[in-house]
């Protein structure tokens, strides 16, 4: 679908509008962090454990970081990792799923059973194992997110392809004399964008949580890079001693951005369902 | 008293832009014992008209004007509970797709009993009585092995059998008025004729009136006593089927009849397409496609004209209608 169609749908769908606004806001924050953040996020030159106030809007943490600046810088890591991992999964998933969905031969089923087995593992355990195997680092996190998400994209895209290949316009493309590759990528794939987009946004929401969770478990992004999960992990022990701001502000940040992606995902699914009924 | 009298019916569907004026002042009468064919193409308003009579216009649709009198009672003044009591019992509906009209999870017999029970019949006395009436009805729609059909689930029946079951459902409460919307679309020609034979026989036998909504002029010519032709939300010609088929007057009716291929006659290909219901012209909606258009047609609303002694009327500026 075209950008104009997307805009028109967004105007009619409040979930899409609200979610899109949340995501855009966080993307803007990530891009403009150096401009709007009052302090260097890595600087530890402030008095530790100051409560939120006029000099430090969200207070400071145990090491003397400015929490506000770190919350603003964190999406540069969190969004970047989550979006890259999911986009990689999308690309690989589509390349696998389109031929697997289109073929009527035995190997299509074999590939699907493989991914079914893959999906049986608990996500976080799998992520931990992958990080252990590949070594810590942002490349590893992206790879782990991609591996976790490929089966989801394969499933969604294959489902679409299975129904699209029975459609009359695909038969018309065969009758026209199109080679199979062109049928797959010119006629079938463009008609799967809606469900793929919906899956991607939901996957990104989960990926953000996984990135944060890995950091929380100290196998994700290494300090001093600002990252929400890391910050929550640092601050949660202080919750009991009264310094709530260290963990709560990054926590709220995660909630809003995840909510944004979920809203967009639901909104897309709803519009797709309506569109399909016509 | 006239069984059904629709007067000045208007229905609009509001959207984000201009409302779609689906029905623009329809007058329609149906007497007991007659089958009126409501003919039109897609977007002509024939289905919306029939749904209005059944009280089934839903948001964003709205009846904006007119009255729908069933034996003198205006259905538009009734509450939802009163309407529900009338639907099925006094006015019943045979929809286009029998598959959609039958509950896939219930046996045919059970569905028929449910209709009886939900309209307060049967009560405590009479499982046996209910059973007897369903068997009687299913036989009346020409199903030769009624016991088997009543025990069947809808998917176990062929398309023709399923449509017979739908007709049985529609007739079991002996309604005064039956509305059938394209009841044979999707059925094979040999089955179509059987279903329509049966439908008209049932309607006549029970002394009901019927509205048969269709795009098929062949069906109207063979099964209807009267015809009403709709175009862009208005009836443009109505009269006894015999009179209208022998000498159609409205240029649209003439064009429609000549659009059906008949060997040895040149096929008439009506130019253009139906107008946008959001921006209807002030005059005749058919003017842009009309072969006999006059200067005043586009701007001045056409008057009703009567064909002497025939109860045959048409909506046109041409005094005698289109030349043949």
């Amino acid at each position, binding site marked *: 679908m075209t950008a104009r169609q997307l805009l028109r749908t967004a105007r009619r769908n409040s979930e899409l509008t609200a979610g899109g606004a949340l995501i855009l806001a966080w993307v803007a924050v990530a891009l403009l962090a150096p401009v709007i953040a009052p302090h260097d996020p890595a600087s530890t030159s402030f008095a530790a454990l100051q409560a939120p106030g006029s000099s430090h809007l969200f207070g400071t943490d145990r090491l003397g970081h400015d929490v506000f600046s770190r919350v603003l810088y964190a999406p540069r890591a969190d969004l970047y990792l989550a979006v890259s991992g999911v986009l990689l999964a999308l690309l690989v998933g589509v390349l696998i799923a389109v031929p697997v969905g289109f073929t009527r031969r035995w190997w299509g089923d074999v590939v699907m059973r493989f991914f079914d087995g893959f999906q049986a593992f608990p996500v976080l355990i799998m992520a931990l194992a992958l990080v252990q195997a590949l070594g810590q680092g942002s490349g590893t996190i992206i790879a782990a997110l991609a591996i976790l998400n490929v089966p989801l994209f394969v499933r969604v895209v294959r489902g679409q392809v299975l129904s699209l290949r029975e459609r009359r316009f695909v038969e018309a493309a065969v009758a026209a004399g199109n080679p199979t590759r062109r049928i797959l990528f010119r006629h079938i794939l463009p008609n799967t964008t809606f469900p793929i987009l919906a899956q991607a946004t939901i996957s990104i929401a989960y990926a953000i949580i996984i990135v944060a969770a890995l950091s929380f478990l100290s196998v994700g992004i290494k300090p001093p890079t600002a990252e929400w999960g890391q910050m929550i992990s640092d601050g949660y022990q202080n919750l009991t001693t009264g310094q709530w701001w260290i963990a709560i502000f990054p926590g709220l940040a995660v909630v809003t951005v995840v909510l944004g992606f979920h809203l967009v995902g639901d909104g897309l699914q709803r519009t797709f369902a309506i569109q399909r009924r016509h | 008293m006239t069984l059904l009298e629709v007067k000045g019916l208007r229905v609009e569907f509001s959207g984000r832009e201009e409302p779609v004026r689906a029905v623009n002042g329809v007058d329609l009468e149906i007497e007991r014992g007659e089958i009126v064919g409501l003919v039109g193409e897609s977007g002509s308003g024939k289905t919306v008209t029939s749904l209005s009579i059944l009280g089934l216009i839903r948001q964003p649709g709205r009846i904006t004007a007119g009255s729908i009198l069933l034996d003198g009672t205006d259905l538009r003044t009734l509450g939802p509970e009163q309407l529900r009591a009338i639907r099925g019992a006094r006015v019943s509906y045979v929809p286009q797709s029998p598959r959609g009209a039958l509950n896939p999870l219930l046996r045919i017999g059970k569905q028929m009993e449910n209709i009886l029970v939900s309209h307060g019949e049967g009560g405590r006395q009479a499982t046996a009585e209910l059973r007897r009436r369903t068997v009687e009805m299913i036989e009346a729609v020409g199903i030769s092995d009624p016991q088997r059909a009543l025990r069947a689930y809808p998917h176990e029946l062929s398309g023709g059998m399923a449509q017979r079951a739908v007709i049985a459902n529609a007739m079991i409460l002996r309604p005064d008025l039956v509305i059938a919307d394209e009841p044979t679309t999707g059925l094979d020609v*040999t089955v179509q004729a059987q279903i329509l034979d049966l439908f008209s026989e049932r309607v006549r036998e029970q002394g009901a009136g019927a509205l048969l909504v269709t795009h098929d002029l062949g069906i109207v010519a063979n099964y209807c006593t009267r015809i009403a032709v709709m175009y862009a939300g208005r009836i443009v010609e109505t009269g006894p089927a015999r009179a209208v088929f022998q000498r159609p007057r409205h240029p649209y009716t003439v064009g429609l009849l000549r659009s059906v*291929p*008949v060997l040895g006659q040149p096929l008439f*290909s009506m130019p253009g397409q139906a107008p946008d219901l959001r921006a209807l012209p002030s005059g005749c909606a058919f003017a842009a496609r009309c072969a006999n258009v006059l200067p005043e047609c586009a701007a001045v609303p056409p008057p009703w004209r009567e064909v002497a002694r025939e109860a045959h009327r048409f909506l046109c500026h041409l005094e005698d209608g289109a030349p043949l």
Partner: protein
Amino acid sequence: MSVLLEVAGLTKRFPVRGGAVHAVSDVSFTIEEGESLGLVGESGSGKTTTGRCILRLVEPTAGTVRFRGRDITALGRRDLRAARADMQVVFQEPYESLNPRMTVHQIVEEHLLLHRPELSKADRAAQVAELLDKVSLRSEHGRRRPHELSGGQQQRVGIARAIATDPAFLVLDEPTSSLDVSVRAQILELLLGLQRDLGLSYLFISHDLSTIQYSCTRVAVMYLGRIVEVGPTREVFEEPRHPYTRALLSALLRPDVDQSVSRIQLEGEIPSAITLPPGCAFASRCPVAIGACVEAVPELRRVAGDAQRAACLRAEEIPALMATPGPG
């Protein structure tokens, strides 16, 4: 005139649990240059599968399809794709058959892109404009997407793309059935006009006898996967020799209040296409069946004139046995 298409022994069985659906059984016919053959039958008669097998949109189980002498069923993938330039199809549901994500221009252009790679972009654009004009669409329609067009316009796009590569033969699969009555006539006239101007041959598949009668010189009637009667349209419609053709014609409702045809009532249900009876498939519903009918499948044989053939043991007696159907 010379033979363009020769179908011989065409058979298609779809495997299902515990057997196979006999969709098409031993169908043979020819179509000459510039001729249209009507293929009529009810749902499940196999007429649509026959059309698809000829184009190899469905792989036939047995039989040959010779197009200008060359056996289409024996072509490899690459040759088959190239051969599609000469044999095209127009589908029943115009909207369903157009890719919703492509513009009208792209849809029509694709056929040129595939089969005339030597054309420049500008040449293709000029040809697309010419094609749209041939089907009475304006050039600005080229920028639209299928959902922005009316049903009739969508079918014009389907036709424009089918004739883009100058094919000799089109399968028309119920091309007017899903359209409004007044639009049907427009599309039918367009198809007949194109046939005259371009010398096309049609296999015109339809359940609507009036449409076939109006547009085809010859007609074949199918019942449960087999051709039961074939011949010049006029002869078949005036004096059908197969009881099923007669029943079909008598069920035709003409827009004529004086139509007085005693309808032939067919009793019973159509047999299952999985377990076909050993004899004539129509025998179970036939009002004039005799004992011999259920023993062997009657062969399609010449019964009247030069060209009218019917698969009925009693074909010669049929006019006397059954009421005359309505005037042709």
